[in-house]
Each structure stands twice: as structure tokens, then as C-alpha cells.
């Protein structure tokens, strides 16, 4: 998130807007005698590893085993609820990415009910991906998932109404965290297109499809493009099926994928499989960790030989300054505006 505030004269100095607390954006105020502080939040559709490290430190949501388990619990809730509602993979995927993004920018302390947040993410995802479902339908499906043998919940239940209210509040928080930026790309269509182009056959494509689904449980979608993730998944699928991977492993540029990115995504995915195999779609088919571990050794070897620098984080312009944790009450103190990128903010400022 990148925002800046400059309260105009007349507004209380101790208004709570701390100038410099956020990155620069630009300011706008209502053209009237009454001035009030306006903040602009600029969307960050992608984050670098360094950004993520900075945010994690601020949020103090430690990445310990307990937190990881609760995260996977949330993913399972999203997936099982979503399957009940017959959502396509892109909806489930978006929900999981939104969930991870949420707890990068918000602390667990302020939003301790991880399940509620997960369902709110599913709600937002269902709207984003044009697979609309009413809130109550989602909540009822979630209830059925959590109480498979339990009594059916009544449509008028007070518990449901209470949950619905909470979901609406959380939905808003999720939307603000993502800066209302609905530009999302998914790797799955690219898996099909690339596999067809390389004539790799449907078996490898299907395995890569599953791996892409697992990729949503990592931070890869926040750090890399969808087509890069697709290619990396195809590679892992190829190795697991003992296929010839030479067709693309050395020509990632043909698919507009940076080789270094590609290798890093492979590592990220392998880490998921090595550390959390039972939580993935490959657990039953590839229960043995050896293949994943030897893949990891290979990739690390390749990376250490290549010229790829361990990218030093350098900011060339404002937007790349370190992101900050959200103050979720800030909307109460003034007007928050959400802008897709700094270009637009600059254009607006010049018009005012």
C-alpha cells in the first residue's frame, strides 16, 4: 500500500493522519471551504520477496508451524466450501491468494478469526471471478462442511445473520486490502495453451493443472506472473512423469518467462511439496519426497551457476518504497481513495 496524507490547514494537526507514515501518492481535497484529509492508497498487485519480508516483520504474524497449520486449515475450508458450491479453480485460487494477501497487510491480532476471513475472501473471489453466490449460500455450505453430520441449519437462524454481518464487514476489509484491484490472471489457461503448443499431451497438462492449483497455496501468485507459474508447473509435471523437458526448460523466453523467475517459482513450489505434501493435490499420487528433493538440488545447482544476482532491493521511484501494514480504522478518520497505480494518481493531481 502506498499512501500519503497532508492535512490542509484547518484540519486538526493531531487528526491521526501521520504524514510520512505511508508512501507518496498524491492528495486531493474537496474544492470547498471545508477541507478534510484524503488519503490515496495505491494498489500493489505484485510484491517482491523483500516487500513480503518487511510486511511479515511488521505484522508480526510469525510464520511458525501453528500459523502455517491455521493457514492450511483456512485453505481447506475455502476448497471444501467451494467444492460444495461447485466453484471453478479460479474462484478457489483467487480466494486463497486474497487470504494470503490479507494477512500480509493485516495483523492476526486485529483479525483473529481466520475462518471468517477465509469465507470473506471466498465471497470476494466469487464476485471477482463472475461465479456469483449469495453470502448465505456460502455460509450455509461452510456450515455443512464443518458439521457434516450435524443438524441442517435453518435459513432464518440468528447465527447465520450474525455471520452474514461479520462477512460483510470482512468483505469490505478484504476489498480495501486489495485496493479494489480486480486485475487478476490465472495460470490454468496458460497451462493448456503451452502444453498444446509444445505437444506435451493431456496427462502432463493435467498434472501441471493440479500443480497450478497447489501454487495458490504459496506466495507465488503475489510475486510472479501467471504464465510463469504455468511454465514452472509444466516443468515439475514433466520431471515427475519422467518426460523430456528440454523443449522448454532452456527456452523459457519463448513464453515470455524470465529464466530466473521460472527457477524461483519451481523452488517455491518444491518447498510446498517437500514441507507440506499432505496438504497438496499430489499427496496420493507422488507420496515419495525423493523426486521433489532431487529436483530442488538440481535447481539450486543451476541457480548457483547462473549469473542471476541476488536482487538487491532498490527503489527507483516512490511506489517501490517499503509497503506498510494497514490501519484498518483509517477509513473512519477521513476519506480513503483506492487507485490502481501512481500514474493515475499523478494525472488526477495535475487536474485538480
Amino acid at each position, binding site marked *: 500500500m502506498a499512501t500519503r496524507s497532508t492535512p490542509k490547514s484547518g484540519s486538526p494537526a493531531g487528526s491521526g493522519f501521520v504524514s510520512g507514515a505511508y508512501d507518496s501518492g498524491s492528495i486531493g481535497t474537496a474544492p470547498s471551504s471545508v477541507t478534510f484529509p484524503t488519503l490515496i492508497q495505491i494498489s500493489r498487485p505484485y510484491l*517482491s520477496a523483500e516487500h513480503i519480508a518487511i510486511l511479515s516483520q511488521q505484522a508480526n504474524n510469525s510464520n511458525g508451524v501453528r500459523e502455517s497449520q491455521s493457514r492450511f486449515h483456512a485453505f481447506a475450508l475455502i476448497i471444501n466450501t467451494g467444492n460444495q458450491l461447485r466453484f471453478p479453480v479460479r474462484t478457489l485460487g483467487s480466494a486463497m491468494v486474497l487470504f494470503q494477501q490479507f494477512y500480509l497487510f493485516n495483523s492476526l491480532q486485529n483479525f483473529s478469526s481466520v475462518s471468517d476471513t477465509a469465507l470473506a475472501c471466498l465471497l470476494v473471489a466469487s464476485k471477482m471471478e463472475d461465479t456469483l453466490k449469495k453470502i448465505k449460500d456460502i455460509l450455509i455450505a461452510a456450515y455443512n462442511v464443518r458439521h457434516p453430520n450435524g443438524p441442517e441449519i435453518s435459513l432464518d437462524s440468528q447465527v447465520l445473520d450474525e455471520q452474514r454481518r461479520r462477512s460483510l464487514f470482512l468483505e469490505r476489509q478484504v476489498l480495501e486490502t486489495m485496493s479494489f484491484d480486480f486485475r487478476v490472471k490465472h495460470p490454468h489457461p496458460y497451462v493448456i495453451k503451452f502444453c498444446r503448443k509444445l505437444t506435451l499431451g493431456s496427462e502432463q497438462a493435467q498434472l501441471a*493443472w493440479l500443480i497450478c492449483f497447489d501454487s495458490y497455496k504459496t506466495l507465488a501468485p503475489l510475486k510472479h506472473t501467471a504464465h510463469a507459474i504455468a511454465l514452472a508447473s509444466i516443468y515439475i509435471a514433466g520431471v515427475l512423469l519422467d518426460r523430456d523437458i528440454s523443449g522448454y526448460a532452456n527456452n523459457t523466453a519463448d513464453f515470455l518467462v524470465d529464466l530466473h523467475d521460472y527457477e524461483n517459482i519451481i523452488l517455491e513450489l518444491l518447498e510446498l511439496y517437500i514441507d507440506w505434501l499432505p496438504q497438496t493435490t499430489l499427496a496420493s499420487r507422488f507420496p515419495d519426497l525423493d523426486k521433489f528433493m532431487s529436483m530442488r538440488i538440481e535447481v539450486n545447482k543451476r541457480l548457483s551457476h547462473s549469473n542471476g544476482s541476488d536482487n538487491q532491493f532498490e527503489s527507483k521511484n516512490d511506489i517501490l518504497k517499503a509497503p506498510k501494514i494497514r490501519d484498518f480504522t483509517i477509513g473512519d478518520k477521513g476519506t480513503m481513495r483506492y487507485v490502481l497505480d501512481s500514474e493515475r494518481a499523478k494525472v488526477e493531481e495535475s487536474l485538480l
Partner: protein
Amino acid sequence: MPLDAFEARLAFTDLLRRLNASVQSATKCAQFAIRYKDLSEDLYSCIVEELELTSLNSRVNILYFLEILGENSIRIGFPDYVDMIRRDLWELLDKVVPVLPGALANIALARKAIDNLQRKTIITEEELHRVTKRLEEREAQISKDEISSFSRGDILKRMDEDRERHKRMRENIWVIPQGDAIQVEFENAWETTSDLGEDDYDSMKEENNLLKQYVLK
């Protein structure tokens, strides 16, 4: 409150007459039919009668209602309504797209409706194919020359109902059909996704540029 056959028929016909394109009205009808499923034959004959008597526009609403009725029947495991719908499928459609001026307006909707019936496993694929063929033949039969006389009110009502149906469709068209969800979706995508092309490369370039803005190398 148990009703005798006569009262039930009256009440049900009344509900059928109030049917519009909304899910609520259809659900209300369906719930009544399920509640009095002991009288299923009587209630079903009301449906058939109403199809004969009511306007062309309203017949479409009844057709869409059958989908909700079928769905609910399957859910509670009550086969009678579904059996009767399958048995009389063409007879029912025949009334929705009769050889009358103005019926052409119903053809596209009828096609969608039977498609939905098959997707919800109310009718089989084979039945769908057979009846689709007959629909095509019927379409050719209906004269395109005669301009039908719909009142302005009818036209506006129909437009509203089409809008409502379209909204409903958007809520369901993405639903992954029965079976192992991920498998089914993959197979569908494998068949239908377009080949890698210019526009894909443009998209990928755009994404790469977007990434560059936020993640410096």
C-alpha cells in the same frame, strides 16, 4: 393443512398463473407441488392444462419452473414429477413453441431450458438430442413472415423476464457439473481453450510490464 384434490388443483393453478421469471415464484410453486406430492398426477395435469391455456410468454415461465420442480424432486428422491416430464417432454415443448406466429420468440429460450434440464440430470443426453432435433424441425415450420400481435404490455413484461432469466443464467452457467470437479473442469478446458495466440502474447507482455513496476530487478 391437508387439501383434497380439488382444492389442491385450484390452489396450484392459481400459483401457476402467478408464475413469472423469478426464482422465488418458481420455488413457491415447486414447494407446493412437493408438499402435495401424493397428488402429483393431479398437479401435473394442472401444469399441462395451464400450458394450453395461457399466453406464449407465460408458457416459457412454466417451462423454466419445470427445471426447479425437477431439481427439488431429485433432491428429495421423489421420481414421479421427473418421470412425467421425461415421458411428455416433447408434448410440453410442443405447447411452448407451437406452430403459431410469435412462437419463434420462444425457440431460443426453449433450447436453453432443455439444456438446463439435461445439465441438472432431469433428462438424459439422448432425450436432449432427440428433442433438440424436433425443435429444429419446428423452428423451420413456424412462419417467419407473420408479425405477431403482442401487446406493448406483453412485450415489456417479456423483456423484463428475459432479463431476469439472463441474470439467473449468469449465476449458474459457471457451475462445474457433476463428478470430480477438478477433473471435469480440466477436461473441459483441454477441449475448449483456444490456442496460444497474438492476444495471449500481448497479455503476457502486459503482465510482465506490470510486474516490473512493482518488483525491481
